[in-house]
């Protein structure tokens, strides 16, 4: 008899699975029902004289595959900016997280003889050779964010300022705590991947800026840039410190998990600063009832700027706001602090995590 009833149960499971498959098929779509989602927003800017159509140029583009909202926004922004120009043919290659594949993708762009390359390498050191090869073949390279060690390998570098990001967060935290008159504040830091130089730069900037106020970081712990690790690390850190005055989380994507952990622990006694500048973080800041008070940018809009610069280089123009005839060799973007006061201005630039 036991055999019998377990057979029936099994039949039920199967029937359920078959029935379910039908419903599920309808559930795979991710299209928003009304199309006002800001994932459609494109961070394009319309500049001065330089925007008038010029010589036709082909821009090759290669970046890592997105496993993170920030990288996804990089590719989308570059594409959107390129589409703004009638004189630009945009040629992106399949994004990949494999060094070898990215090398061969860039090689294919070289052999297609594109006019200029925009490269966000998986690893600057390891892609240096192929960037050099492009430069040697007469194709200027715009190096996006992760820098090539060899200056002969690229024409212009544009990227964010990790140290400056830490400094911006440190100044926000320091100023707020001094306003509140907290004497020996408990300051907690949740990092991204601790072994990355960018993480170490951010932490150093944070510590240096705090030092100017006479403060220091009480505890820091690394997550892995994912929502889940952010949640896990924050849950444990909140147990380690019963009273916190300020928390800086390096990354808004993992910040979603950090915020969930704070909510689940029912904590409210401190304020939090984020990093990167995702749309979601900005909405939290705007709401005014979140512990998240501010975020410091490391904006993927840099990809839009890189495409603009690449076009100028290929057309032999300089930047219209500068006196020089050519584009600068290096552009470090400032990390800006977004708080409730200015969040409306930044919202259109936020990326969906």
């Amino acid at each position, binding site marked *: 008899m036991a055999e019998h009833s377990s057979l029936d149960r099994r039949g039920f499971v199967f029937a359920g699975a078959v029935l379910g498959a039908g419903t599920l098929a309808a559930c795979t779509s991710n299209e928003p029902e009304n199309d006002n989602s800001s994932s459609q927003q494109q961070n394009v800017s319309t500049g001065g004289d330089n925007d008038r159509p010029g010589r036709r140029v082909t821009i090759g583009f290669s970046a890592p595959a997105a496993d993170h909202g920030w990288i996804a926004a990089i590719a989308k922004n570059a594409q959107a900016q390129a589409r703004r120009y009638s004189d630009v043919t945009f040629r992106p290659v399949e994004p990949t997280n494999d060094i070898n594949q990215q090398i061969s993708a860039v090689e294919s762009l070289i052999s297609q003889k594109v006019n200029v390359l925009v490269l966000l390498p998986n690893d600057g050191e390891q892609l240096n050779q192929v960037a050099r090869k492009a430069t040697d073949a007469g194709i200027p390279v715009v190096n996006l964010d992760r820098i090539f060690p060899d200056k002969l390998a690229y024409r212009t570098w544009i990227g964010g300022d990790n140290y400056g990001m830490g400094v911006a967060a440190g100044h926000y935290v320091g100023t707020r705590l001094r306003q509140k008159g907290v004497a020996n504040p408990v300051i907690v830091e949740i990092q991204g991947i601790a072994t990355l130089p960018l993480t170490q730069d951010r932490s150093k900037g944070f510590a240096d800026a705090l030092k100017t106020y006479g403060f220091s970081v009480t505890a820091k712990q690394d997550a892995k840039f994912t*929502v889940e690790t952010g949640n896990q690390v924050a849950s444990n850190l909140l*147990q380690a410190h019963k009273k916190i005055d300020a928390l800086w989380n390096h990354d808004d994507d993992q910040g979603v998990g950090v915020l969930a952990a704070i909510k689940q622990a029912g904590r409210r006694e401190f304020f939090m600063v984020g990093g990167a500048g995702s749309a979601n973080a900005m909405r939290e800041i705007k709401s005014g009832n979140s512990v998240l008070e501010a975020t410091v940018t490391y904006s993927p809009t840099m990809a839009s700027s890189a495409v603009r610069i690449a076009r100028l280089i290929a057309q032999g123009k300089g930047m219209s706001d500068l006196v020089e005839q050519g584009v600068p060799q290096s552009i470090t973007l400032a990390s800006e602090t977004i708080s409730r006061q200015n969040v409306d201005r930044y919202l259109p630039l936020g990326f969906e995590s």
Partner: protein
Amino acid sequence: MDAPTSQDTAPRTKQQGDRPYTRSMMMLGRLGEARHVGLVLALVILAVIGVVTQPDNFATSSNVVSILALASTIGVITVGATFVIIGGGIDLSVGAVMALASVWATTLATQSYGPYVMALCAILVGTGAGLVNGILIAYGRLVPFIATLAMLVAARGLAQRMSDRRTQLLQPENNAIESLSTTRVLGLPLVVFIFAAVALIGWLVLNRTTFGRRTFAVGGNPEAARLAGINVRRHTLLLYALSGLCCGIAAIIIMARTTTGSSTHGDLYELDAIAAVIIGGTLLTGGRGTLVGSILGLLVFTMITNLFILNGLDTSDQLIAKGVIIVIAVLLQRRGLRSPT
């Protein structure tokens, strides 16, 4: 299989199955207890370290709640993994399947149907992936390692494609999902009760039903199990479906905890789950094991993470500590096996 045959074989399997079953269970009981003593001892040692190093923070109710809540996601998966491993298989796809289920359940289209459909969707996707594993292994004769490795890669790929590699947030109207980890009953968030329920049901099924006995039989000696009238293939299929079901439930918990569905969820869960099962005293070759051990093993891991972060230590050292513990556990397990003979 038609009804008369199954009625025919049912009593026979019982008689044949019973004697070796009780004998092996006695032996297992002895070993199991000894192993559990080791794990309980490990937990006690960790707790003492916690109390000594962090007197104000470790032995608080909120820290205990936090450890249990953190353990509940992998905990549910560990229950399924214990069944699969006792049944002589391995499921490497658990983390990826959980990620896929969380992504599928949080697409805007699924979310428009409300929290119940989202939960059902997660469970169906998990079970469905488990069934595919089971069919490939039981009927396609693929080695479990290969079949579930393929599922690991494919499920993560599908999750990335479906989510466009973005983090999918719970919509405000589906906060019911998040309330599973914010609502507390008797001081514990609901997700801990889900974990407890899955563990209890798993224990009952493993130790008090024919399904459980067959799992031991199939894992111990599939040929003998087949000769004893057990449909080994069908049973194998069901074991992987069960593991998939657990991944679906875990997906609901991870959505509740992180308020998101993401293709990055559950990274390397397969290793944590398998490690917990192994240090819990289950043989990787199948046929022997306990669910209580797996859960104790998992709690050891979760407590180590907690202790390291409470003391502000580096996460790299944490990994080393975990590795050392796995090796010690397996060495002890070997000694435990040799001693009765």
